[in-house]
């Protein structure tokens, strides 16, 4: 009799579990931490009766390494533009052709046909932003629209300046500052870059990611940073300003892809289309605090973001932005050596 009881119990348990997951389907999202608006997810779940799970990652390298190993169970990931070509080349993503989806007409023209995914055959824009210089104007009143704040730190900011330790971003900025092209492997330029970085480091207080809290508390008075992070800092302290360096600054964009190993492809496609809707895109922005590349979303944007100088690039700074690229592996190796030299 005993096995019968067990079987009944198991049957009941199974019934219960299916009862709990009454949704028509599931969707497993693999995204950067603290990046996915719970409100937009709730709306998506309600509209399509799909249960969404979200798993966090903290770097493009982590995400790529994990998805390469396979068997993750994720349907969707959100790599940055520098990594998208690798994901495509290595066959990790599906050609879902979002460029032809119903809501694709909403993609802003400058983001409709990007170099990293011509014709939007794989990716849907999630967020885009800039990397610039953030300065607390209580500590420094001079002109701050220059990478010189970081690499040739003015006296007022010496020992109070932080650098976000993203190797690619720092190399991009330093190369721009000495007048080179991004991803250069010109030894003359790189030598200048190395000398510049090594000479600049003693003026920095730290190389940390935790800028929102430290700028807020006053541990840092200046930092290199992402624009969305700068926006949060200004909302906490109006004296903190984001600046677009005149030497040229980097643009980035994170993009939603459907994994080749996805089990819920149709749900993933629904999601890709769903977030290209202006209202939903604005919902995402309201949470992650970055721009979204969807035309018409400004109508639904929260008031503190509509005209925010961090989100809406001023006309005179617009031509200075340049989409960051993935450098060749050999170049990357040179950069890693300079980086090690800098942090040794």
């Amino acid at each position, binding site marked *: 009799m005993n096995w019968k009881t067990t079987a009944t119990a198991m049957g009941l348990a199974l019934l219960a579990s299916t009862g709990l997951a009454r949704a028509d389907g599931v969707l497993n999202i693999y995204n950067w931490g603290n990046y996915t608006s719970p409100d937009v997810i709730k709306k998506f779940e309600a509209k399509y009766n799909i249960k969404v799970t979200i798993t966090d990652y903290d*770097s493009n*390298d*982590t995400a*790529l*390494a994990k998805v*390469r190993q396979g068997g993750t169970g994720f349907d969707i990931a959100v790599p940055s533009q520098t*990594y998208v070509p*690798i994901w495509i080349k290595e066959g990790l993503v599906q050609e879902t052709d979002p460029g032809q989806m119903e809501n694709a007409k909403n993609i802003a023209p400058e983001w409709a046909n990007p170099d990293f995914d011509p014709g939007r055959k794989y990716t849907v824009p999630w967020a885009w932003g800039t990397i610039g210089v953030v300065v607390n104007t209580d500590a420094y009143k001079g002109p701050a629209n220059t990478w010189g704040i970081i690499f040739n730190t003015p006296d007022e900011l010496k*020992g109070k300046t*932080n650098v976000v*330790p*993203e*190797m*690619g971003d720092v190399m991009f900025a330093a190369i721009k500052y000495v007048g080179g092209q991004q991803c250069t492997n010109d*030894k003359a330029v*790189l*030598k200048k870059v*190395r000398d510049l970085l090594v000479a600049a*480091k003693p003026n*920095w*207080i*730290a*190389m*940390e990611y935790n800028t929102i809290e430290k700028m807020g*508390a*006053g*541990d840092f008075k200046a930092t290199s940073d992402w624009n969305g992070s700068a926006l949060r800092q200004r909302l906490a302290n109006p004296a903190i300003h984001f600046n677009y360096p005149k030497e040229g600054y980097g643009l980035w964009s994170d993009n939603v892809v459907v994994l080749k190993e996805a089990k819920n492809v149709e749900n993933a496609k629904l999601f890709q289309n769903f977030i290209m809707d202006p209202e939903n895109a604005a919902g995402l922005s309201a949470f992650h605090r970055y721009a979204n590349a969807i035309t018409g979303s400004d109508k639904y944007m929260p008031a503190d973001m509509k005209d925010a100088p961090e989100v809406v690039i001023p006309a005179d700074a617009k031509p200075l932005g340049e989409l960051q690229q*993935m450098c060749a*592996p050999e170049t*990357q*190796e*040179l950069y*890693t*050596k*300079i*980086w*090690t*030299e800098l*942090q*040794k």
Partner: protein
Amino acid sequence: MATAEEVAKAAERRDVRDRWLLSAPALLVILFAATGPLLIVLVYSFLTPGAYGDVKWQFSADAWTSVFLERDIFDDTLSLAAAHVTIFWRSIKLAVVTTLATLALGFPTAYFMATRSEKTRDLWLFLITIPFWTNLLIRTFAVLQIIRNEGIVNTILLKLGIVSAPIQILYTDTAILIGMAYVYLPLMVLPIYASMEKLDFRLVEAGYDLYATRFKVLRKIIFPLVKPGVIAGSILVFIPALGAYVTPSVLGGGKNMMLSNLIELQFGQGRNWPLGSALSITVMIIVMAALLAYVRNAGKSGVRHG
């Protein structure tokens, strides 16, 4: 007919077999959970880095050469990998200083605990283990809150008028040392306390009766007897301190790499997994060498006292 001897032999064989079978699960776990991953690390250190992370299955000793030697990217000369040596040295120095600091703080603490009445001893032991209840990262952030410019220490000093501007402790080597000593202190106290608890304090009294000074009693009686605890504590502190990652990053500001940061760089933004693997194994070799030297030395002087 089997002789008694044969029966005994068969029984012995069975016994041996049973023992192996019974220990097999444990051996398998050790083999796969401990040795397996290490073997993968070893194999990876002899491969070629993939273009964007991962490895190519192609033999190469480059990773090992670049642990110790580097080709200057500007004048192409081969020289000792100065950056790596600097980083290794920084981590080793920090581990040694942390061990000494925790010993200096932990030894008196353990002595204090061991000399309390039996009832209160448990309470002290309990208090020492409390920090283990929270995550390392949280404990480190707690230290950060205390020493930062707007932190408790600086606020009190400013309020009392002892200093006119906050003292910059955060992001200095002092900050790292404070954090490390705090985080690893229990690992030093517990083994010393375990030895100290077994110490026969009548020997100490006997020492005083024979007109030994306090220092002499400490040096000639207490210390030799609790030495196993001191050794165990030092090992327990030194090894994790060598690979410390969170505490130096959070309190030191991440400007200067530790060994662990260097290794992480290779698996992350540097995308050179073989070099990362080779560096990891180098760390293991250093730890092993340090342990052997330490244990051997400790053993020798132990014989002299015995």
